[in-house]
Structures are given as C-alpha cells and as structure tokens.
C-alpha cells in the first residue's frame, strides 16, 4: 500500500491521526503530515478507514 496526502485539501479534522497515529500526524496548524508513505500491513485497515472517513478526500491510497 502506498499513501499520499493532499495538504491544501486537508481541513484539519484530525480523524486520520486518531485512527492511524503512526502513519499520519498534524502540523502546528492541524494540517495533515504523512509520517509513513508505505505503512506496514498491520496498519492497512486503519489507513483505509482514515481515507474513508477523511471529510476532505485528502488521503489517496494505491493498493499494490
């Protein structure tokens, strides 16, 4: 799985950080920061859930 984030789209809802704290973080303004673009399989479910609940469609996944 490969993860990309689109910071200009992010509305700082923090949901991704809540669900997958090892993969996503927030900067000083609450905007998403990607910690791990190729997360280990045990994080995949949480990352998929993050992408599904992200209100701004700011998380893009490519499943390999």
């Amino acid at each position: 799985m490969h993860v990309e984030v689109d910071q200009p789209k992010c509305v700082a809802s923090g949901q991704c950080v809540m669900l997958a704290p090892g993969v996503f973080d927030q900067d000083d303004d609450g905007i998403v920061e990607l910690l791990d673009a190729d997360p280990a399989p045990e994080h995949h479910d949480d990352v998929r859930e993050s992408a599904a609940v992200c209100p701004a469609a700011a998380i893009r996944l490519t499943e390999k």
Partner: protein
Amino acid sequence: MPETLTHSSEGQAEWPMPRAATCPFDPPPALKSLQSEAPVSRVRIWDGSTPWLITRYEHTRALLGDPRISSDATRPGFPRTAGSAQSDTRAPLSFINMDDPEHARLRRMVTAPFAIKRIEALRPAVQRIVDDSIDTMLAGPKPVDLVEALALPIPSLVICELLGVPYEDHDLFQHNTKVLVKLSTAREESAAALTALTDYLERLLTSKLERPGNDLLSDIATRRVATGELTQREAARMGVLLLIAGHETTANMIALGTCALLQNPDQLALLRDAPDAKTTASAVEELLRYLNITHNGRRRVALEDIEIGGETIRAGDGLIIAGDIANRDPDVFPDPDRLDITRNARRHVAFGFGVHQCLGQPLARLELQVVYSTLYRRIPALALAIEPDQVRYKHDGAVYGVYELPVTW
C-alpha cells in the same frame, strides 16, 4: 396519519417533518419512506420555496464533498431556516457560511487548538471538570436536572477555558445562545441575540489585545486582528460561532445520550461494565450516529447542474441534506434503528462531511468520552426521575435534545 407524508397543495412533502411520538430518538417516519422511495425529492419549506431533500448516505457524502455546492447563505435559492437571524442579514456567521478559498483561509486560523495532540493534552483538565461537576451534583438534593447540573456546565466550562471567555459571564452567553438555537424565535429577537453576543466578544477581544492570555481569543486578537488580517467584527463573529458550537451540541449529546442510554439499559450496562477506552470511544460514535442531534439538515445551494439519484439538481436549486436519516441508511448501518454500542459507527455523518465538517469534533469526542466513561461508573444507580414519556424533547431546536432531564440515584 403519522406514517404518511403531509403534502402541500402542490404535491411536495412539507419540511421539517414530525417525529413519531412514540420514537423520540428516531428520525421522522416520513423521512424513512422518502429514503426508500424517493431519496432525492423536493420538499416545501416555511417560505414556500421547494429545495431538494437528500436522504441516502451515499448521496449525502457525495454532495457534501462536492465543490459544486455552496454554503453561502446569501445566494439566491439557499434554503433559509425560519426565524434565523441569518435569514435576513448579509453578514455570514463567519466561515460556516462561506465557500473556499475564503472559508479555508478563515478556518485555518483556528484549527491549531483542535489538533488531536493538543486536544488529548486537555484530557486531565476535562476529567477534573467532569469529576468536580459530579461531586457537586452528588452533594446536592435529588432528583436533579442533569441538563443544569452537568450537560450544560461541562461543555461551557471547557469551551470557556479554550477560548479564554470568563465563565462568570455564562448567564449572558448561555441565554443568548438559547435564543439563537431555538427555531421558533422571532427573527428580530434572534438578530438581537446575535448582536449581543457579537458585541460581547468584541469587547473581550479588545481586552485580550491589551492583556493577552494563553487562549484562542488572545491568539486571534494578537495574531489576526492586530495584523489587520481580520477586522475586529469578523474576529468577534468567529468567536460567536465557536462559542455557540462548543456549547449547544455537546450539552445536548450529554443529556440526550444519557436519556437514550437510560432507556436502553443493556447498552448502558455494556458501557458501564467495560470502561476501557475502546468501548467508550465506540459508544460515543454510535450515540453520535444514532442521535444525530443536528436534525434540521445541512443547507446548501447548487452552483452548477448536478445529476444524482436519477434527478437533475439545477444551478441555483437549494438543498437540504438530512444527516439524521443518512445515519440510519440500512445499506451502510445494518439494523440502523437499533442502538448498538459495539457496532463500527465511525463512518457516520453526525459532524457533517466535506470541507465544512465540524472543526470541534476532536474536542466533542474527548468531552463525551470522559463524561460517558465517568458518569455511569460513578453513579451506577442513575435513573430517570420521571416517566420516559414525560421527557420534553427539543422538537423546535436547531439542535435536538431534551429541555431537562430529571434524574435520581
């Protein structure tokens, strides 16, 4: 005919629709019929206009995430709320009624304190506020009104601390907030309440400019007003928005959530007997889904023609997107009318969806998690002090809830 739709002479169903008297937690039965029979259809509202009503989960998420719809309440065709001060004012209540890029510019000025780690750091303080409020309640007479004793003061104390609003002034802002969120309030009265709150916030911002503290309003005053990025009035309106949003919603979730749990004792027992973080968090999401207290729909207006659900929404058409029924969509939440705190309800739209999704949601989640994990454990004998059918529900509120919740133990 409670199970059928009320139709106006022109054939459209009337909005809002009444709930069934026997199911105070369920959306109106007529909404359920529309969801299965005509999920994208026209309704008639108080001013005679006929916006589209959206009832399915899938359409709700698609439209709320679509840049072709606008939140700008001053555009022609926008379905206005009866009685609202917003109905006839040109000035929007800050970024909630704006579109990007202006919306994003203003919203980003206040996102920092709502970042997950900053909110998590507040957990001990929120726990202290909740414990103190419960101590006070237990020391007093019973029965007691849970709304006055806990549901209102807890979020009020928390948002005051975060914004830097003196809690001593709570009479002023609680009274005016109450007026503003009541749909039956006359427009002049609601405009006066909005002005009173805005003036109050403006005075507060002035004093923060002189003596800044470690709070959000001081931050806005010194970093945005002093630099000319925001006018004093814009900043005050932003403050009003955050103050109202921080109050009314969480207070109603605490009281209505408790009311629902007391009437679903098996669910209450599950929550009370497993006070681990996971069970609590899951219960909070399920109660948010099930109760969906923002029950008047999210209002928008189309900027372009949009094809959805076999209908064509034309540019300039108004939209009411009914999250309460979307959260009961059986395609997404099996057996949706059952309160089940063990289900995965995380994808609910109680906080909205798209760029306007609730900014304060991490704070709301934190407060609800602390209250729900503390209250029923500390007072296992908590019970309604009146018959369930005597509870007065806020049918006329912009936010759904209960007017009071007499409890004993």
